[in-house]
């Protein structure tokens, strides 16, 4: 692909995002709540698009395409399990979180925990824990952009990742959540439209239509149509941490606070479900189609690059930009959310100067992730896998908000114990009984949460006393 054309394409995309960001800036009022959650005034469509763009990173078009190429529809099952679980969890938890956030003026998920369990220490622990777990995940996004631009357009790795850093800082600092949400809407539309164009081109032009595509699959690659191609324990081990992603990852759970009203929240859930389903189905179909067209690709991460090298240059460029957009939209959301957590849990949200501190934190977090990516540690990929398992340790505390016997001791100990299990097992490479660390993390954090909640007493006159499960 032409280097000049690629840079021109990225420039057009970046300028379009800047124009959107500029409009967002003009609409943005003053204050921390306005900066971090747009004063809870995001409409359903934008909320759905930012939720989608935050959730779906470059893993989909690069990682999942390659995974499907190797293990077939079992990778589809893992991704669909995540989607179904997320939509169902949103159906139950989103209105509750939204209402609690509004009633108790919570801006971050960790602030909600602090208020519910009446423990500032808990908020700080969750903030630091999320930071440790999410930095490798952010670095992987930078690395993905760097490798892709280097491989497809011959743009040096260090320049590619630096471009990403500039784009992320621009969109995030300019107008906070409103800018991130609006530009995310642009990114998600690019992601969906480009993937639709690509899949139709591959299947209709390269494979002579769906009928022939399915016929080749059944005759030549029927093993890819078996759910058991991926070992069952691995399937469970990958699926379970992602099933609770909507609650455990602060960058997505914070999005339950931003909707303008419950109608917007409802629309957010429906449109995210539709987006997630279409995007997943398209990406999986691309992985299967790649196997039919190019059955001998040795490295799964390069399958998308191979596909793109066989489509018209303009289409390849749009898809390339969509992959960059997917990474950028994920990283800017994580950066903004982590910044909000640090600002509120460590600096408090009253002082005016905190907006300056918030922006300074954004720069600090983004640069840390960027510097991490420059080292090109192989271990970063493993660390990012660990992060999804590690973050599972906070799930009992978030779900336990609605359990009247839950206490701060239960919450703190479950997070520390569960997180330690994930870190120790991944660092030692130990999978006791063949069961993946995410499952052990879930078991340990649930047991410790329940046990320590039952043996410790909750504070008197809790502000959330009225919260009951109906």
């Amino acid at each position: 692909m032409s280097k000049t054309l690629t840079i021109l394409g990225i420039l057009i995309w970046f300028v379009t995002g800047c124009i959107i960001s500029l409009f967002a800036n003009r609409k943005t009022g003053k204050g921390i709540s306005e900066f971090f959650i747009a004063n809870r005034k995001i409409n359903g469509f934008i909320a759905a698009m930012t939720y989608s763009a935050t959730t779906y990173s470059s893993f989909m078009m690069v990682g999942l395409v390659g995974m499907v190429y190797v293990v077939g529809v079992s990778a589809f099952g893992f991704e669909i399990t995540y989607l179904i679980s997320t939509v169902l969890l949103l159906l139950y938890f989103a209105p509750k979180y939204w209402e609690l956030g509004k009633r108790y003026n919570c801006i971050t998920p960790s602030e909600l925990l602090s208020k519910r369990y009446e423990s500032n220490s808990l908020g700080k622990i969750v903030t630091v824990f999320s930071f440790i777990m999410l930095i490798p995940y952010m670095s992987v996004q930078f690395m993905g952009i760097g490798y892709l631009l280097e491989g497809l357009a011959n743009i040096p790795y260090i320049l590619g990742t630096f471009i990403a850093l500039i784009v992320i800082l621009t969109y995030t600092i300019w107008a906070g959540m409103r800018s991130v949400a609006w530009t995310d809407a642009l990114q998600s539309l690019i992601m969906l439209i480009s993937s639709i164009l690509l899949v139709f081109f591959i299947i209709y032009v390269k494979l002579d239509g769906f009928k022939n595509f399915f016929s080749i699959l059944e005759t030549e690659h029927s093993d890819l149509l078996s759910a058991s191609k991926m070992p069952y324990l691995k399937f469970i081990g990958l699926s379970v941490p992602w099933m609770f992603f909507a609650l455990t990852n602060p960058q997505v759970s914070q999005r339950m606070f931003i909707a303008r009203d419950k109608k917007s929240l409802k629309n957010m859930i429906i449109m995210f479900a539709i987006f997630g389903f279409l995007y997943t189905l398209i990406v999986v179909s691309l992985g299967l189609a790649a196997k039919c067209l190019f059955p001998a690709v040795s490295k799964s991460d390069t399958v998308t690059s191979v596909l793109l090298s066989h489509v018209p240059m303009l289409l390849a460029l749009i898809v390339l930009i969509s992959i960059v957009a997917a990474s950028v939209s994920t990283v800017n959301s994580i950066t903004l959310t982590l910044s909000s957590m640090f600002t509120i849990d460590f600096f408090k949200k009253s002082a005016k100067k905190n907006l300056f501190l918030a922006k300074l934190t954004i720069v600090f977090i983004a640069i840390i992730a960027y510097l991490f990516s420059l080292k090109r540690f192989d271990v970063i990929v493993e660390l990012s896998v660990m992060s999804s398992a590690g973050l599972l340790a906070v799930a009992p505390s978030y779900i336990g908000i609605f359990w009247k016997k839950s206490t701060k001791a239960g919450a703190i100990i479950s997070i520390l114990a569960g997180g330690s299990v994930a870190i120790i097992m991944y660092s030692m490479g130990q999978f006791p009984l063949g069961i993946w660390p995410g499952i052990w993390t879930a078991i340990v954090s649930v047991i410790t949460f329940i046990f320590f909640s039952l043996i410790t007493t909750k504070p008197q006159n809790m502000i959330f006393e009225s919260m009951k499960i109906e």
Partner: protein
Amino acid sequence: MKDNFITFKVFLPIYLFVLIIDFSIPFFLPSRVIGAYLFWILLPIITFILVIFFLERRKHFE
């Protein structure tokens, strides 16, 4: 908290049922397009229709 989209007593059985069949049935289906592949297309469609039903029946959100 009366403005829930779904109550816990309804949510939990649905959530568990959907996930149990998601984690079991596809692994017994044949290696064909109408096997696990089709199953994992239909399961979210049916689930999301159910979700939309729960979201749309509470008109007082409008």
